[in-house]
């Protein structure tokens, strides 16, 4: 089903069956070795953040929604503990690409994906990969805040409970930690047993971030997390992203050029299903190599 179209032949060319389905069983030193090999092999791919370890890669990804060719041969690398922004006009496939990274597109009828997407050197579309476990490692925050109709506490504890954590004290610790991580703790610490639906939009979105953090993901995908928020909440979430950067690999879709320029280390520009250009944000926003990127970020179309 999946055609491996990796450009770098030195990279893991082993057949799919040999890939360990459970990435957590690979020791970190093993992983580091694999990755250093991969980095040298990919040295020409993106000159950005210098010695960063690559967390995720996409190579030659094509996606069809029925007859519609939504992603055309997209390749990208995402270094660990950096923020990568995906920009581009509406309908160019940013969300679609983001949703490939935690296999949320699996749910859509008639959606066909080919190519190769790797998390820590493992193809996430390989047979035998547990989607549930993948999504615990690659969390997601959506465009519209989507708190569950439960208490704040239950919202945050939802993910850890799925992992089988039942101990109240441990759960309470995780809930506090995650809410603190999402800069929401001080605002809700007395209302943990109240409905999450009573929070403001900005608070709900931070709750959704806390909920995603509570499963201790390695990668956090954010699909325009600020588009439904007021400027103050937006600032809070941007601040939050910068803090989270030290622990998580963050990939964020945004329509806001300033946001991309302010917050991200790398930026990828999508147009009509193609990835036009991907580079360090400082380069992308000052000296893009592609004329189309320049036109877009200077606001000539979009």
């Amino acid at each position: 089903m999946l055609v491996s179209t990796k450009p770098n032949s030195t990279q893991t060319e082993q057949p799919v069956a040999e890939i360990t389905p459970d990435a957590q069983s690979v020791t970190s030193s093993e992983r580091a070795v694999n990755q250093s090999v991969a980095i040298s092999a990919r040295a020409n791919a993106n000159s950005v953040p210098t010695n960063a370890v690559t967390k995720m890669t996409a190579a030659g990804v094509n996606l069809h929604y029925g007859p519609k060719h939504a992603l055309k041969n997209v390749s990208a690398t995402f270094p660990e503990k950096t923020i990568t922004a995906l920009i581009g006009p509406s309908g160019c496939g940013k969300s679609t690409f983001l949703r490939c990274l935690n296999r949320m597109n699996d749910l859509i009828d008639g959606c066909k994906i080919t190519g190769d997407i790797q998390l820590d050197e493992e193809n996430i579309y390989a047979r035998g990969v547990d989607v549930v476990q993948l999504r615990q490692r690659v969390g997601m925050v959506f465009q519209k805040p989507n708190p569950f109709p439960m208490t704040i506490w239950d919202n945050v504890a939802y993910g850890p409970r799925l992992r089988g954590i039942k101990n109240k004290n441990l759960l309470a610790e995780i809930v506090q930690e995650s809410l603190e991580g999402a800069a929401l703790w001080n605002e809700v610490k007395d209302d943990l047993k109240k409905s999450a639906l009573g929070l403001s939009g900005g608070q709900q979105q931070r709750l959704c971030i806390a909920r995603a953090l509570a499963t201790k993901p390695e990668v956090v995908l954010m699909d325009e997390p600020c588009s439904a928020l007021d400027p103050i909440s937006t600032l809070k979430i941007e601040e939050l992203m910068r803090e989270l950067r030290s622990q998580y690999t963050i990939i964020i879709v945004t329509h806001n050029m300033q946001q991309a320029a302010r917050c991200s280390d790398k930026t990828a520009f999508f147009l009509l299903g193609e990835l036009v250009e991907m580079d360090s944000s400082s380069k992308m926003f000052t000296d893009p190599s592609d004329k189309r990127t320049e036109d877009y970020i200077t606001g000539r179309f979009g």
Partner: protein
Amino acid sequence: MNPTLPAPSSAVSDRVRPLPPMSSSLMTKRRVSNNVMKGLCGLATILAIIPLFLVLYYVTIQGIKVMNPAFFTEVQRPAGDPGGGFKHAIVGTLMMVGLASCIGLPVGILGGIYLSEFGQNRFGFIVRFATDVLNGIPSIIIGVFVYSIAVLPVSRATREWNDPITFSAWAGGLALGIMMIPTVMRTTEEIVRLVPQSLREGALALGDTRWHSTLKIVLGAAKGGVITGVLLAIARIAGETAPLLFTAADSLYMNLNPSKQTASLPVRIYLSATSPDDHWNALAWGGAFVLVAMILILSLLARYATRARNV
């Protein structure tokens, strides 16, 4: 094959032409027809609720006359003997509605969830059509059906040749349960379908399985509506007479054993109201009053459940 850039949008057109003014005769005509239609709709609404209020009024006036503790704590006495009550019928109805719920609720709710979440295929289409047909089948047919599958075979297997047929509350509950399924299933399906996709995705993105997220998040978000559907379905079957005639039949005695024939409010009302005894006729009104009150309370609870916040 580089994508081409979209052309820059053209400047806003300045050719906005004003419409001619509306004539005053046209405005009058529209106002008059608006008021006439409004009046007709109001009249039709009043005509629709008059029967409801007349029924409620009449049943209350007649039924309240026999409302006393004995009505709820005693069974009917022989004709001609004043006093007695409908305890056996009330208990029988509660018992059979309970049995029916044990069948109708799990099948209806799980089936509704299946239709909404996984039923966008040929099988789902067939099931949906079948439940709609089942919903339209006259209740007496359901009664005959249960009679032939759950009353006669049991009777044949257990009774001596000249014993009476063994009607039972089991059979009555089964008939009522079958009648509940379509209502519960379709309302559950409609309500669950309304739960925003973003909630499902939110749970799946946390590493939840499809089934667990459906039970926990989707059903949790839809529970107000599902409870409403359940209460309305119960209210509907509580007053059914025809399916019970052949299944639970009737009894003049208090009975808690579901394997025996059992009285119910609707059947007792029917038989007492058509008996020649004046006091039994009065008790029938009392039974009708209790039944209507039960259904009214269930409907009110259903309204309340819909309105309640989802936490």
